[in-house]
């Protein structure tokens, strides 16, 4: 009996995961002893048997039923609910009665009686402008006039290598590779939204429209942000178009000067334009002296990268800048290195190194501006204060440090931000005497003997051409400041730097009247050009002729503060020695104290998430303030800072008081300032300077002859 039962049990019970299984052996043993209950057992067993049998019978069909059909059913349910919700959403009035939408500044100012006055020109920055395909290789068939950059980025996923190929420029010329023409999208659509739902200029445009702006007095100066500035003119005549458009806006709007609103890299692009337009024709636009004064009322630089962005360095050096390209945010999975052996970062580096314009964002002004081995103008900046401002309402952990802030604890631990790249955390904190003093020039000479690593086959980045030895040598140098950094890049990427340095310069002019400064490569560097030297003369001329109260041209620097911004990096050698690999990477394990500025291998300072305060504010706060050699005509400058406040709830989206580099374009205070100036107010009328950061103190510490 027992054996039969066990046999049965083995046969039927085991394959089935029955809940009573654990107890059943015990049960059966007990049942064995009780012969009286035979029939019961039998019935029990028969029930079990039939049960399991039935299960076996019904199992197969029912399982099929479940898998596919339940799936279908689930999806059907989801779809239906989704559609239903979508329907409801569309049926709802645009504004729910209970949900109070804060009034947009445009509406408010319209009620105050502001109307469109000066035409407005928007100059988008790096990466925010859309690019579309005009001619491509066979792999890009069907993409004619479709956006490769901006929009939904579907092509990255569909045909990534084709996409990268088309976005790259030629390695030698920095222009189109043969057979490929990728061109900027023109018009306001170029940069109103970067990706679907991610606004860049859209909010500002909408508010401008509220007070009466439209296509005829609003112009987006879209340009190919991958090219060097002068090349946008050579290839696309972008500067000539901008000039013609500004002249047209000026004439068709009743001879009212334009207000220019550049953002990020657009700021230095427009600086370049200002010089270009007054330079005689072969190299420049031939507008003649006084063109700017005649046509421009104010330049309202948003998040200006006047003196460069340290982030660019890490980006060029190891493609690791946190978000100079929003790429990573857009496609985090794809960018993780070595997923499927794709070596995404290497690809990105290969592509972005063909973009000359990146070099324009390298820190300018060398050690004078960015600090040397031992000191930097923004050192002693208290990271906690940034955080305090940012996280004031929160109560986690930070409260404990508030006392430290008051005691000035952090001052002792001065961060040597001047060392933009250091190898190893210890080196970043050593005093300069302890650092092995390798002369840069000697270092360059000694390492000129390169043996090309031919085993890697096709060369992707110039790192592939460097020997392991020279890579080690780079690391031995330990620290690099803004000046030696250029030498470093010349060493690791000689061709790129050679190409790019024909278009950009990063120094400080000793004598601005030196004829060499007439070359276009200096035009985008505010420290090597005079800003609109003819403004005053022609304004006087204007006054005499017909404009009795012609307001002077103004330069505004509008930027966010209160966000930790990358300033310098702690690097390490990457462990692998494979081909086509980036040999350096940020040492993410290098962390400072809890309240230190060092986090994950990156030193942070105050800024707007991309541009440090120093770069954004220095020219307006000191370099051009008053009548200096960089600003011989004494154009009025205004610093307008906007303190960052993260959005309080999800409903606010990216916040209306944000100070972040791109999100600031939705900051209501900034929008109001732009609107007021566009409607005719002067810088003094919107309140002059508005400063939250230490920019004045920092500027004072910079020892620059003015």
């Amino acid at each position, binding site marked *: 009996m027992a054996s039969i039962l066990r046999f049965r049990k083995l046969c039927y019970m085991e394959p089935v995961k029955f809940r009573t299984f654990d107890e059943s052996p015990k049960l059966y043993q007990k049942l064995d002893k009780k012969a009286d209950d035979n029939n019961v057992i039998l019935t029990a067993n028969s029930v079990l048997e039939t049960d399991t049998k039935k299960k076996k019978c019904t199992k197969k069909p029912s399982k099929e039923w479940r898998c596919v059909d339940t799936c*279908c059913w689930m999806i*059907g349910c989801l779809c239906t609910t989704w559609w239903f919700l979508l329907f409801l959403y569309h049926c709802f009035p645009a504004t729910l009665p209970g949900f109070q939408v804060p009034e947009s500044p445009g509406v408010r100012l319209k009620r105050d009686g502001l109307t469109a006055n000066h035409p407005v020109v928007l100059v988008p920055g790096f990466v925010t402008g859309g690019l579309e395909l005009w001619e491509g290789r066979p792999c890009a068939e069907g993409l*004619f*006039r479709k956006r490769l950059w901006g929009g939904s980025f579907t092509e990255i996923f569909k045909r990534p290598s084709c996409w990268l190929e088309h976005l790259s420029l030629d390695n030698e010329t920095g222009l189109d590779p043969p057979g490929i023409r990728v061109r900027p999208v023109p018009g306001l659509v170029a940069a109103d939204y970067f990706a679907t739902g991610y606004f860049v200029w859209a909010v500002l445009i909408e508010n401008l429209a509220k007070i009466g702006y439209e*296509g005829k007095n609003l112009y987006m100066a879209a340009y190919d942000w991958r090219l060097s500035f002068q090349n946008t003119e050579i290839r696309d005549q972008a500067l000539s178009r901008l000039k013609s458009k500004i002249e047209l806006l000026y004439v068709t709007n009743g001879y009212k000067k334009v207000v220019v609103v550049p953002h990020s890299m657009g700021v230095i692009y427009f600086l370049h334009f200002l010089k270009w337009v007054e330079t005689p024709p072969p190299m420049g636009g031939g507008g003649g002296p006084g063109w700017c004064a005649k046509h421009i009322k104010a330049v309202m630089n948003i998040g200006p990268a006047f003196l460069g962005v340290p982030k660019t360095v890490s980006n060029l050096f190891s493609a690791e800048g946190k978000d100079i390209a929003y790429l990573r945010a857009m496609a985090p999975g794809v960018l993780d290195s070595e997923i499927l052996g794709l070596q995404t970062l290497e690809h990105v580096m290969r592509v972005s190194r063909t973009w000359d314009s990146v070099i324009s964002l390298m820190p300018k002004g060398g050690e004078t501006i960015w600090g040397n081995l031992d000191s930097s103008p923004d050192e002693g900046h208290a990271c906690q204060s940034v955080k305090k401002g940012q996280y004031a309402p929160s109560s986690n952990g930070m409260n404990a440090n508030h006392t430290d802030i008051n005691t000035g604890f952090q001052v002792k631990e001065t961060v040597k931000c001047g060392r933009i790249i250091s190898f190893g955390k210890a080196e970043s904190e050593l005093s300069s005497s302890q650092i092995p003093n390798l002369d840069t020039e000697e270092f360059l000479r000694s390492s000129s003997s390169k043996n090309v690593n031919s085993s890697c086959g096709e060369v992707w980045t110039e790192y592939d051409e460097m020997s392991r030895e020279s890579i080690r040598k780079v690391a031995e140098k330990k620290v690099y400041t803004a000046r030696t950094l250029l030498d470093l890049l010349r060493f690791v990427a000689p061709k790129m730097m050679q190409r790019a340095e024909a278009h950009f310069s990063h120094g400080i002019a000793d004598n601005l009247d030196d004829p060499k400064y007439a070359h276009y490569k200096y035009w985008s560097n505010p420290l090597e050009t005079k800003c609109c030297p003819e403004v005053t003369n022609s304004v006087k001329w204007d006054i005499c002729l017909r404009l009795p109260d012609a307001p002077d041209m103004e330069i505004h620097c509008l930027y966010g503060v209160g966000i930790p911004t990358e300033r310098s990096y702690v690097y390490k050698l990457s462990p692998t020695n494979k081909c086509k690999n980036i040999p350096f990477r940020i040492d993410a394990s290098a962390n400072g104290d809890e309240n230190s500025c060092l986090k994950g291998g990156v030193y942070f300072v105050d800024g707007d998430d991309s541009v440090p305060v120093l770069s954004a504010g220095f020219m307006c706060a000191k370099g051009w303030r008053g009548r200096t050699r960089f600003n011989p005509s004494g154009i009025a400058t205004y610093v307008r800072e906007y303190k960052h406040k993260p959005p309080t709830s999800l409903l606010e989206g990216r916040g209306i008081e944000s100070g972040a580099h791109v999100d600031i374009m939705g900051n209501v205070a900034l929008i109001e300032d732009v609107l007021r100036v566009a409607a005719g107010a002067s810088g003094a009328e919107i309140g002059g300077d508005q400063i939250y950061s230490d920019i004045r103190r920092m500027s004072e510490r910079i020892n620059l002859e003015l």
Partner: protein
Amino acid sequence: MSFLRRRKGSETSKSQNSDSHKQEKSKRRGEDESKRKGDEEKIRKWSCLDSCCWFIGCVCLTWWLLLFLYNAMPASLPQYVTEAITGPLPDPPGLKLWKEGLKAKHPIVFVPGIVTGGLELWEGHQCADGLFRKRLWGGTFGELYKRPLCWVEHMSLDNETGLDPSGIRVRPVSGLVAADYFAPGYFVWAVLIANLARIGYEEKTMYMAAYDWRISFQNTEVRDQTLSRIKSNIELMVATNGGKKVVVIPHSMGVLYFLHFMKWVEATTPMGGGGGSDWCAKHIKAVMNIGGPFLGVPKAVAGLFSIEAKDIAVARAFAPGVLNKDVFGLQTLQHIMRMTRTWDATMSMIPKGGDTIWGGLDWSPEGGYNCNAKKLKNNDTCTACQNGNGDLASTKKVNYGRFISFGKDVAEAHSSKFERMDFRGAVKGSNLVNKTRCDVWTEYHEMGVGGVKAVADCKVYTAGSILDLLQFVAPRLMARGGAQFSYGIADNLDDPKYSHYKYWSNPLETKLPNAPNMEIYSMYGVGVPTERAYVYKLTPASECYIPFQIDSSADGGSVDSCLKGGVLSVNGDETVPVLSAGFMGAKGWRGKTRFNPSGIRTYIREYDHAPPANLLEGRGSQSGAHVDIMGNFALIEDILRVAAGATGEHLGGDQVYSDIFKWSEKIDLQL
């Protein structure tokens, strides 16, 4: 559940005392079984809702799968399929000419026509919330369905000024996107742009002169400074392309708009652009007019008169359901009429030149046109052959000069056989219609029954009297339009009154600019029956209705009659009759005439219509229809050659399929 458990319990009741374990076991088993039973129950209760969900899920899944496959499919697959079915496709002209070595040379300016340009909202009323910078016209027309009244309100212009109503700003979309596709998949300029790009054109050498096609030409300058922008852009393109002159390609109404521009740019500043008298000579190499309604479009009359032109607004094709009369009592046609009547631009296309050009009561230049000539070519049936020989009899009756006739018999009778009443004296005021019940206002409601009757009593209207008719039925509209457009023929072009801008878009009242090296092409399709005259009837009296409508029951006697459904058709491109598109090029401007004092060379390029052979061809590469011609390979090739530097002689001079030269001779116009 509990019932099941109880049932199990009774089964094992005998052994209840013997072992608690057993009970537990059976209980568990019971539970288990009940669970399974529950499952079964669920399956049994697989209700309607569930199967609905299941079905939707299935459909979604398949859809996604197909979508995925479609996306994963190589882009060239459809082409392979097409080639497998229809044999190898000819190279698109861009590729073909690129292989021949043609390169981009002259910058190109596109001037879109009426309705094809996109319009977007810049400021609107409450109801248009959230539509800021969204397309109201063009694109998907989603808003038309969602909030039709709001849409009509925003698309209308002010009744008095012909400009924006207060609080509404609708502006043209700028850039090539303005008119590359009218609606998704319905190309206008896209094919031409793609072919130009093949030989090296790009954004900097192509410019879409988008303008607000609703307002009168001069008002585009007054409101948007559009003409100034076009001038500035052309100057910029000439400057940045090494002094190479531009090739201008206007389409449809853009042809008239560009005529206006050429006069404007050389006129002195307060009214004109102040470019100087040689601006055109310096900046324009050629004007390649595609389907240009130089002398107007008869369709425009029907459009203004009763909103029944077949497709003057392509809107009807896109929203047929909405436009059906009396759907939900929406009075759609009246709404549309009220909206389109605020659009001054439609009046630029009223036939110009009066009876001299379009024919009088008993004659017309196209008089002997043989409507079945085309059909002969298409289907060689023998009956048609026989009829073809004796067609004189059937065509004798066609009186194209009578634009509007009331009743078919009137349309065919000789003018001596009926009497015309003068409607101008008719009393309007006798208004029996209860105005308060009409929520839509058109000027018809002011006419009253007497007025309507008077109009019908006049029986026939020629191109000359059609203006009087419109003046009578829509006095305000015509008063507004009369300040912007003129439809006559100048006796003396040097009369100083002709320097007014209202004459600039009428080729019969302006001189061409002094630019002897310029070339003017008239490129248009032929071989498609085109509306030319209408047979009307009175609408059965009802309230708030448009009192006239096309008598669609009026058909010609024989199969080959030109009269079909109340519409007399003639050769053309479906919208513009050959006469309007070709006359200026064939005669009015040919050689040195008073309209063309500097002797600008003109070329007629006709493209015979061949409908697409099968569905795969889409709208066809040999179409001659008004908009589809923009995808005609022969036309694209001509444009590309001229853009790359060829002259009209290189193209082969005139290319004529229709009787345009014969017809032009019949027109007695002093040159």
